[in-house]
């Protein structure tokens, strides 16, 4: 596979064209917004956290396939997880994307075993200028969870 085909995996294009959990939440929820000013990508999310568990999530945004697919996969993955599991996932995702310094946690012999579909985003590592696209949803999520931390 060429680097480009590696980057634009089918699962990424699917999430880009059919983003999951698109919308907003009503009722009590956390909200955060993120933007990449240099390219104009936007991402906003609502998450409902009950007893330390993410019970519902919805997102809105516009931008490139990488930023939107990363957000869509993230939203799908975090619902049902505890806040500490989400934080752990965020850390592993950032390691995988080399946003955080450290070894890539993904096991090449068992694809999908560590980060599920999100591992499809590994191709972005070869395109350093696009890493911030993949990271936008995650830094927005961290902003929202920080509010949760401050409230509890």
């Amino acid at each position, binding site marked *: 596979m*060429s*680097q*480009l*085909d590696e*980057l*634009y995996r*089918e699962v990424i*294009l699917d999430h880009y*064209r059919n983003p999951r959990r698109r919308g907003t939440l009503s009722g009590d929820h956390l909200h955060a917004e993120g933007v990449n000013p*240099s*390219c*104009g*990508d*936007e991402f906003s999310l609502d998450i409902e956290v009950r007893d330390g568990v993410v019970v519902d999530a919805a997102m809105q945004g*516009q*931008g*490139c*396939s*990488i930023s939107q697919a990363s957000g869509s996969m993230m939203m799908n993955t975090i619902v049902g997880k505890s806040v500490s599991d989400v934080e752990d996932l965020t850390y592993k995702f950032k390691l995988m994307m080399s946003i955080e310094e450290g070894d890539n946690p993904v096991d090449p012999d068992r694809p999908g075993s560590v980060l599920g579909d999100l591992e499809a985003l590994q191709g972005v590592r070869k*395109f350093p*200028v*696009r890493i911030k*696209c993949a990271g936008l949803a995650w830094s927005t999520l961290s902003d929202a969870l920080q509010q949760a931390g401050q409230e509890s």
Partner: protein
Amino acid sequence: MIDLERLRSDFPILSREVNGHRLVYLDSAATTQKPTAVLDSMDAYYRESNANVHRGAHTLSAEATELYEGARTKVAHFIGAKPAQTVFTRGTTTAINHIAYGWGLNHLNEGDKIVLTIAEHHANIVPWQIISRHTGAELVYLELTDDYRVDLNGIDRILDDRVKIVTFSGMSNVTGAIGPINLLSEAARSVGALTVLDGAQLVPHHPVDVAEFDVDFMAFSAHKMLGPTGIGALWGTRERLEEMEPTEGGGEMINTVDRHVSTWAPVPHKFEAGTPPIAEAVGFGAAVDYLSAVGMDVIAQHERDLTRYALDRLAEVPDLKVYGPDDVLLRGGAVSFELADIHPHDIATILDQEGIAIRAGHHCARPLMQYLDVPATARASFYLYNIPEEIDKLVSALMNARRIFGL
């Protein structure tokens, strides 16, 4: 006619490879590549004549001053102006900020209006927003026609004696649309408003005689016309430059300095506080020499031909929409487009893999993006060194983008 093969060999960067392919540089609206003559002029200045200007009686200082002021003369003559009315600035952005702070802040009041177009670059929007916050003056936007040109219908309703400034670009960095410079400046004159022409895209690509435009100010940048970054120029009428206050104080810009008061040096030095970008000025002078030697008429015609070819070839790509006029007499070589549902950043990444450099994003024109109702566009832009074969490569890479996105 330009001997393109020879001309391209003047630009060392054009022979480099990017991702295993010969560079295809289609981002000259962002910044242009530099010919050897410009690089050599700056190198020679540092190697042989480096000294501070306008001070000291030693030989090197005199040489540096001569080179710096000589560059001013070249740049002034390039736009048909006098050196005494040509101020070196950091670029177009700084030039417009000089006008906004140095003139706007002192002449605008609550209820006054600043008229601009929705197609302006942030450099010609944000300074006026800041001045509007300080003075209470209001920003009023002119919108666009169906073919992306400034819509003058209804301008009579906007124009009244509260309009103090009309500011507009000579050529849009997004749509490529040119003007209408004289219609806008006539309209501004009819109500006694001052006119500002953002020449950042116009001056590099078209023969400009500033006397033919009835405007008060014109701003442009060296790096968009083969020169270095960090320098540009502000041209103004003598009267407006005289009444404009300096926005920066320091060395070079003074006549006398006492404990509590100072007096200013005459224009243009009044606006050039601190040690100026001397090497950059020298490079700017070499850039306009290069452009003049090729001929601005020749360059403009070459770009019209390339743009025609590009618009025709892009029309062959399914689901591609161009945001800009189709008539190459009404537009320059900045071609913005969208392709199906492929985001411009994805297009840019795919093209980059084939060594093709285009711009993707909002092009520092978010109000225009909102007006066009697009989050971003892709933009290919051309200059004197581009050739039709590069447009062929662009089109085939766009077809590859369609394939990658399953279209």
